[in-house]
């Protein structure tokens, strides 16, 4: 393996050259460089927030409709101190976690059954393909009639939405396993169980993780919809309640929380990919 390209920084410390594309691979990059890069990437966001704050301060933005960033921050602080934010956030997290867990189990079981046997495919795939074209959020009224207004319809909505990407990607991954490697397994005398464990499932893992990423996105989306209808707790409820009192600052806090939750769960899957797919050069050289 060749050494990374290095050059001497003015301070005398070794630093990576800017054209070295393997930054992500480096465990020993100088932290200062990483910090600078981080600031650089945050620059635009900070700029927008400063401009927004200035525009609000100058009265260019109506405070009622668009609260200033500092006002939103103030609202967030109040919600935190009163414990309301933590309460609603934990309720929402629990709903997503439960719905997602059910979706992962359901999607995985269905995909394994359909992917590993012809009969399973014939029984499972057609209804799944039909159901996935349904705009599942349109089922909300039905779910309320079926499951009432408690936790069940909300969790069920998350599960329903998140099952499809898991199923579709894992199924495609299982069917996409390289037939040449399957042949190798045959010449090595692997049993069917060993073939599935050592060849088919690892081959499908990247697809599964892609599916998981989509599923998480859809889970949050489903939750937003579920919580805005007939909920008594959760981030969505917090926002709906704020609307009734024209508290746009609290609505903004809710939006920011959703954004951060989405970001955090995406990072979680990326971390999972880095560990589970360590064998892929892309996972180590990319970011």
């Amino acid at each position, binding site marked *: 393996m060749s050494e990374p390209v290095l050059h001497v920084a003015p301070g005398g410390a070794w630093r990576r050259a800017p054209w070295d594309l393997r930054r992500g691979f480096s465990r020993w990059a100088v932290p200062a460089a990483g910090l600078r890069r981080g600031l650089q990437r945050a620059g635009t966001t900070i700029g927008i927030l400063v401009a927004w704050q200035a525009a609000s301060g100058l009265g260019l933005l109506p405070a009622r409709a668009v609260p200033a960033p500092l006002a939103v921050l103030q609202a967030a602080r109040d919600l935190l101190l009163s414990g309301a934010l933590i309460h609603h956030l934990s309720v929402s997290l629990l709903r997503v976690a439960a719905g997602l867990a059910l979706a992962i189990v359901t999607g995985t079981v269905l995909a394994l059954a359909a992917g590993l046997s012809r009969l399973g495919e014939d029984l499972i795939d057609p209804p799944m393909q039909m159901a996935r074209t349904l705009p599942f959020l349109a089922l909300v009224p039905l779910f309320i009639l079926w499951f009432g207004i408690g936790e069940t319809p909300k969790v069920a909505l998350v599960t329903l939405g998140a099952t499809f990407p898991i199923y579709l990607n894992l199924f495609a991954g299982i069917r996409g396993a390289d037939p*040449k*490697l399957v*042949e*190798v*397994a*045959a*010449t*090595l*005398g*692997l049993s069917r169980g*060993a073939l599935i464990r*050592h*060849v088919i499932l*690892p*081959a499908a*893992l990247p697809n599964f993780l892609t599916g998981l990423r989509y599923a998480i996105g859809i889970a949050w989306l489903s939750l937003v919809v579920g919580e805005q209808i007939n909920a008594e707790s959760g981030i969505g409820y917090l926002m709906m309640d704020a609307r009734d009192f024209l508290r746009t600052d609290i609505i903004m806090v809710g939006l920011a929380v959703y954004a951060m939750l989405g970001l955090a769960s995406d990072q979680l899957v990326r971390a999972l990919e880095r560990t589970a*797919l*360590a*064998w*892929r*050069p892309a996972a180590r050289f990319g970011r």
Partner: protein
Amino acid sequence: MSTSVQGSMSTSVQGVAPGTQVRGLIRRFGPTAVLDGLNLDIPAGHFVALLGRSGSGKTTLLRTLAGLDTAEQGSVILPPRRAVVFQEPRLMPWKRVWENVALGLPESDARDRAEQALREVELAHRMDAWPLTLSGGEAQRAGLARALVREPDLLLLDEPFAALDALTRLRMQALVAELWVRHGMAALLVTHDVDEALLLADHAVVLQRGQIGLQLRIDLPRPRRHGSAGFAALRAELLRSLGLSEEEAA
């Protein structure tokens, strides 16, 4: 012919493990018979090179012996343990090199056996590497170790050097020659390369119209080198039976 007296283990003692015997093999793809009543013997411990133009059925025959293809007619008697080295290394990218070699072995001493096999192909220092970080030659050596570790009575080699650069190919050919002498298994090498056949094999057989057209005994002393005495005449004969004059092949 002695048939299903399947020997327990292949050792370097020739004639203990049963040989490979193919009789009247027929395999059709659509209307054309790629293998058309083919007969072939690979005695235990013998190295046979299988030549033929592309599409002549070389790989089909190898795949039949490997159990990856089913012939329509004919009989095949095989020694109990076979192993295959493919043209591409075909390693599982999600398993470390040694895990690839050990795949399918009983777990207890799998790592030790894998390490031993990797040492034989001079790859022990990469045993914990991911396959996608190996060079072409290294990956192919890992594939060879995966075959060796199974102590095959019959080693099936499907153009294993075709995708390698010239220098790596020469080193791999020497390595295979050495391993074959040490282990004494029978081997069937599918190749386009006449020189490769002359370098490695006891017999070169040429596949023509779905049958063995030419059987050529290569009685040169080992270790052999490219272009050593006796090469030229055999080379010309093989090329002729492949339908080429020597000038065309140069």
